[in-house]
C-alpha cells in the first residue's frame, strides 16, 4: 500500500496455516464458553427453580451467537483481532492497510458459512491459496486482508549507540542482539566476551566496568529483556 509521502509499505499477508490455527483456537474458546454457560445456566435454573424453557431458549440463542457472532464480536471489540489471531499475531485490515469499519467486519463474518462450504472451510482455504492477496470470499466482499502484525519495537533492538559508529560495527552489534537469545550458553559467553573486547577497544568508557559480558553489553546498549535462558 502507499503510505504518507507516497512511500510504499508492504503488508505481510498471513499464511493459510496460521489462519487455520487462529480459527481453531477461536472455536475451542467459543465451545468452552458455550459449554460452561449452559452448565452455569443449568445450575442457576435448578437453584432458582426456573422453567427448563429458559435453558432451551438460551441454548438455541447461544448456539446461534457462537455460530454467527462470536468471531464478529471479537473483531469489532479489538479492531480486527480474535483470541486466536491475537495469539498468533494476526490482524484484519482493509486493502489500504487501515483499520476496517464495523460494516467490513460484519460482511466478512456473515459470509463465513459460504467459505465453510462444503465442509472444513474448503472453499475459503482454496480461495486463500489461489487469490493474490490470500483472501477468502468474505474478505473479497468486505475488502479486507489478514496480515501478520510484526512487533513494532523489537526487544532486542539497542536503544542507544556510541557515536560515531561505523556501519559494519553497527551491523555486527545488531546481529549479536538479534541472535543472542537463541545461542547455546557456552557459545553465547564466548561471543559476548569477544564483543565486549571489541567495544572496549573502540569506546573505552562506553560499557559498564563490571559484570558478566552479556550483562555489560545489555546495560551498555540499554537493551530490554533478560539475557540468557
Amino acid at each position: 500500500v502507499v503510505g504518507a509521502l507516497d512511500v510504499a509499505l508492504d503488508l505481510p499477508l498471513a499464511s493459510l496455516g496460521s489462519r487455520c490455527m487462529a480459527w481453531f483456537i477461536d472455536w475451542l474458546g467459543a465451545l468452552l464458553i458455550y459449554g460452561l454457560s449452559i452448565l452455569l445456566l443449568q445450575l442457576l435454573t435448578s437453584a432458582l427453580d426456573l422453567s427448563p424453557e429458559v435453558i432451551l431458549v438460551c441454548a438455541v440463542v447461544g448456539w446461534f451467537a457462537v455460530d454467527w457472532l462470536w468471531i464478529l464480536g471479537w473483531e469489532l471489540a479489538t479492531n480486527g483481532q480474535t483470541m486466536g489471531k491475537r495469539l498468533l499475531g494476526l490482524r484484519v485490515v482493509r486493502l489500504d492497510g487501515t483499520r476496517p469499519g464495523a460494516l467490513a467486519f460484519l460482511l466478512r463474518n456473515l459470509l463465513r458459512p459460504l467459505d465453510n462450504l462444503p465442509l472444513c472451510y474448503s472453499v475459503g482455504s482454496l480461495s486463500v491459496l489461489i487469490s493474490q492477496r490470500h483472501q477468502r470470499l468474505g474478505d473479497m466482499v468486505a475488502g479486507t486482508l489478514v496480515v501478520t502484525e510484526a512487533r513494532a519495537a523489537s526487544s532486542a533492538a539497542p536503544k542507544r549507540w556510541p557515536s560515531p559508529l561505523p556501519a559494519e560495527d553497527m551491523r555486527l552489534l545488531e546481529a549479536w542482539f538479534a541472535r543472542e537469545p537463541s545461542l547455546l550458553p557456552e557459545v553465547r559467553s564466548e561471543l559476548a566476551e569477544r564483543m565486549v573486547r571489541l567495544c572496549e577497544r573502540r569506546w573505552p568508557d562506553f560499557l559498564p566496568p563490571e559484570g558478566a559480558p552479556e550483562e555489560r553489553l545489555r546495560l551498555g546498549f540499554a537493551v530490554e529483556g533478560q539475557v540468557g535462558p
Partner: protein
Amino acid sequence: LALDLGRLRKRAEGEAQEFEQSLAQLRQGGLDRLSHASLEELYANHRRLMGTYARVQARMPDSQTARRLAALAREGHARMARVEPPLLRQLWHYLWISYPQAFRRELPALQVAGAAFLGFVALGLVLGTLSEDFLAAFFSPEAISEARHGRIWTDEVEERGPASWLSTAIFTNNLSVCLLAWGGGLPAGLGTLYILWTNGMMVGAIFALAWRFDLFDRLFAFISTHGPLELFLIVLSCAAGLLLGQGSVEDRGRPRAELLAEAGLRSWSLVGGALPWIVLCGVIEGFISPNMDVPTPTKAAIGIALLGLFLAYALRKVQP
C-alpha cells in the same frame, strides 16, 4: 559511506523512539483523545518516520532497522487513517436513513427476485396439483398419508415444544436462511437461485398438498400471520444475493476486488435492515401462528398489518 550509514541508522532509531512515544498515546485513547498539539506532533513524526524509512529501505533493505521502521510505519498508517463514528450511531443511521434509501434504490432487483419466486411457486403448485409423485419429492409418505386423512403437520406445531423455544429456533433458522440466501449469491448468484428454486417449489408444493386434500383453511390459519412478511423477507434476501452475484460476474473495466467490495456493500444495505423483522416473524410464528384459539381473520389481519408496517418503513421517503 560507513559513517553515513551509521548516521542514518542512528537517526532512524531516534525517530522510531519519538514516533513510538506518540503511538503509545494513540494506542491508549485513539485519535479522539489527542490534543491538537499532540495530533500535529503525531502526524509530523509519522511523516518524518516515513521519509527515513524510505531512505533506510533503499540503502539497507531488510535490515533490522528497516523492519522496525516498517512495523511502526504500518501501525501508524493503520491507526491514523480514519475515525469511524460510534457503532450505535452507525447502526441507527443505517436503520433509519440508509435502509429506506437502499430499499427504494434496489426495487428492480427485488422485482426480479419476486418474479422468479412467484414463478417457482406457480410451477410447484401446478406440478403438485397434477402429480402426487411430485409431492413425494417434498413430503414423507407419512405426511402425505396424514394429509389424505385430513391431518396436517401445522396442527401439531404446538406439541413440538414450548412457544418460547419454538420461536427462538424458528427465528435463528430463518436468519441463517436469509444470510445464506444473500451470501449464496457470491458464486455468480447460483446459491441464491438455488434457494429461490427450493423455497418457491416447496411453497407451491405445500399449497398443492393443501388444495388436493382440502386442507387449505387450516394451512391458511397457520401461515396467514407470519407468512406474508416472512416470505417477502426471504425474497428480499434473495434479491440482495442476486446483487452480490452481479458484482461477481459483471465487467465494468475495473478490478474484480473493487467490484465485489462494492456489490457486497450494496447488497448488504438491502438485507441488513430486514434482519430485525425476521426475528419478529419468528416470535409471531412461535407464539401466535400455532394458536388455533385466535380466529383466522384476526391472524390474517395481523399478517397484512405486519407486511404493511414493514413496507411503510422501507418505502419511507428519506432526504438524501
